[in-house]
């Protein structure tokens, strides 16, 4: 099954050679304020065609604001943003044509059936007739929704609704897919299924995908992630390279007396220990080498001593001093 199914090909609709394999999203000097509050400060970034790009940050970091600006929903205070070479402000129609968006809040009409929702979406994008019908059929098959096509959307489970949203966003063959916290409201199984599906879609179409998330395992899958904290771009790189920057290891220590152990690690051992969510973390290679001695001196006071590779969470903490919520759900509507 492929996405290229139309019979008539108009040269107008094929992206120019210059746009192919080139920059899909370019953000220059983007600043956005909500009144006095600065939500985004001097952001510069480029996202290449075919890239799977993550915007990672805690609630209120500005990632959803950035996504809304890319989606032509919000007028930035300052800066120049292009999508597929089109300016989001001056050529918003062309940008909208290139975009598929899955919002955090469901964008489906519950009173309409799955098929009707898709059909209306097609109409909004100027698609109709047999071509639209065939395209809807393809997507329903592809996303294994065919047997629910006639059901009203309000009767579907959260995971299925999200899949319909994805079908809706992909219907018009967008060049850039924007996903805002797509896992919101999904249970772990539905979440995994959704990400697997997204992976398949990317593999098959080479679609550029930009996703906001505060979930670290999701960000780990991205080619590159941008770490946002308080509206600032803290780092932007391959997740593996970001982790490598931190040094090889992170030790996690669970204890009933975190304050005491933390104090001793810092004062007696001179280690850069930090307290995160009631757990002590020590970053860097040194802790591995000194592990036997540490174990000997600390074992009466600690419940667990674990050494492993750093996670994106460790990276984020080291770079910003903030902890990203690791506890699943978080509402982030204007953050």
């Amino acid at each position, binding site marked *: 099954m492929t996405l290229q199914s139309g019979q008539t090909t108009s040269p107008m609709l094929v992206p120019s050679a210059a746009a192919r394999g080139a920059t899909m999203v370019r953000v220059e000097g983007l600043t956005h304020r909500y009144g006095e509050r600065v939500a985004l400060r001097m952001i510069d970034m480029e996202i290449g065609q075919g890239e799977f790009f993550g915007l990672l940050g805690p609630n209120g970091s500005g990632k959803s604001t950035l996504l809304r600006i890319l989606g032509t*929903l919000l*007028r930035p205070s300052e800066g120049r943003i292009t999508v597929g070479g089109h300016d989001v402000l001056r050529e918003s129609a062309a940008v909208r*044509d290139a975009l598929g*968006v899955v919002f955090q809040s469901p*964008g489906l009409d519950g009173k309409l059936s799955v098929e009707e929702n898709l059909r209306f979406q097609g109409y*909004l994008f100027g698609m109709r007739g047999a071509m639209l019908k065939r395209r809807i059929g393809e997507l329903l098959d592809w996303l294994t929704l065919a047997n629910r096509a006639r059901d009203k959307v309000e009767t579907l489970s959260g995971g299925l609704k999200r899949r319909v949203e994805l079908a809706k966003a992909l219907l018009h063959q967008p*060049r850039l897919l924007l996903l805002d916290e797509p896992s919101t409201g999904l249970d772990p199984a539905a979440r995994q299924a959704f990400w697997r599906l997204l992976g398949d879609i990317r593999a098959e*179409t*080479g*679609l550029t995908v930009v996703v906001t998330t505060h979930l670290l395992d999701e960000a780990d899958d991205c080619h590159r992630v941008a770490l946002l904290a308080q509206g600032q771009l803290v780092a932007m790189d391959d997740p593996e390279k970001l982790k490598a920057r931190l040094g090889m290891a992170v030790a996690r220590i669970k204890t009933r007396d975190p304050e005491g152990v933390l104090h001793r690690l810092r004062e007696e051992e001179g280690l850069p220990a930090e307290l995160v969510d009631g757990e002590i973390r020590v970053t860097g290679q040194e802790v591995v080498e000194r592990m036997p001695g540490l174990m000997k001196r600390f074992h009466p006071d600690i419940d667990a001593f674990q050494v492993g590779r750093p996670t994106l969470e460790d990276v984020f903490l080291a770079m910003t001093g903030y902890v990203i919520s690791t506890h699943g759900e978080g509402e982030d509507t204007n953050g």
Partner: protein
Amino acid sequence: MVDTTATAPAVRTLPRRNNFLLATWSLFYREVLRFLRQRNRVMGSIGTPLLFWAMLGSGFGESLRPPGMEGALDYRTFFFPGTVMLVVLFTAIFSSISVIQDRNEGFLQGVVVAPVPRISIVLGKVLGGATLGLLQGLVLLLLAPLMGLPFSALGLLQGAAIVLLTAIGMSALGFAFAWRTDSVQGFHAVMNLLLMPMWLLSGALFPVEGAAQWIRYVMMANPLHYGVNALRQVQHGVPMEAFPWNETVVLGCFALVTVLLGVWLAGRPEKS
């Protein structure tokens, strides 16, 4: 950065058309479809004119007789256009609540990010609301003979035209308010504040001629006044040369201005 040459880029192969009409029609059709799928709304919208008809046609009509008006028939004749407009006004304006609902439910975001001309978004909603208003107006107009009012096919047709034009303006007014309102309660509060005086001073209850000077000015500025006035003139059918063209032009201008206001509001990306 990934190797973009390894995977085929998603080349656009599906043909597109200019989608103004298609988008407008589909948004309009969705409004109607949603209405028909909510049984309580259908029942309510048919029931309201029936209720008004029952009240106007029976006890209410007999018990109220202002001085100078002899006979229940005259009074009903006087009251009838105002009643029709009351029903139409509420339906047309409150149908715009769906804008707020669509926004809160997220559906509107999906429409706004589509490459749809903003005027399609406005017209789809407004024509949807106006159609529901017209539907209710028609129920009442068709019931007129059962109220003891003379029936005229020409009057029905002319009345429907006036009702539709009024409903478009009112629905567009509702849209413009609803676009910037984030709560249904807030919309209700503002609209009630606006609707009741609008109806009371439309000439539905008392003719403009007898009113105090300042009330007259307010009535002249009230678009609904022209709707009631025009409907009153055509309710039994009039030849084309007697058709209330002045009122029709005012109603048309009001509809145009409110629709354009909606387009302007919907066309601006939000700042917050």
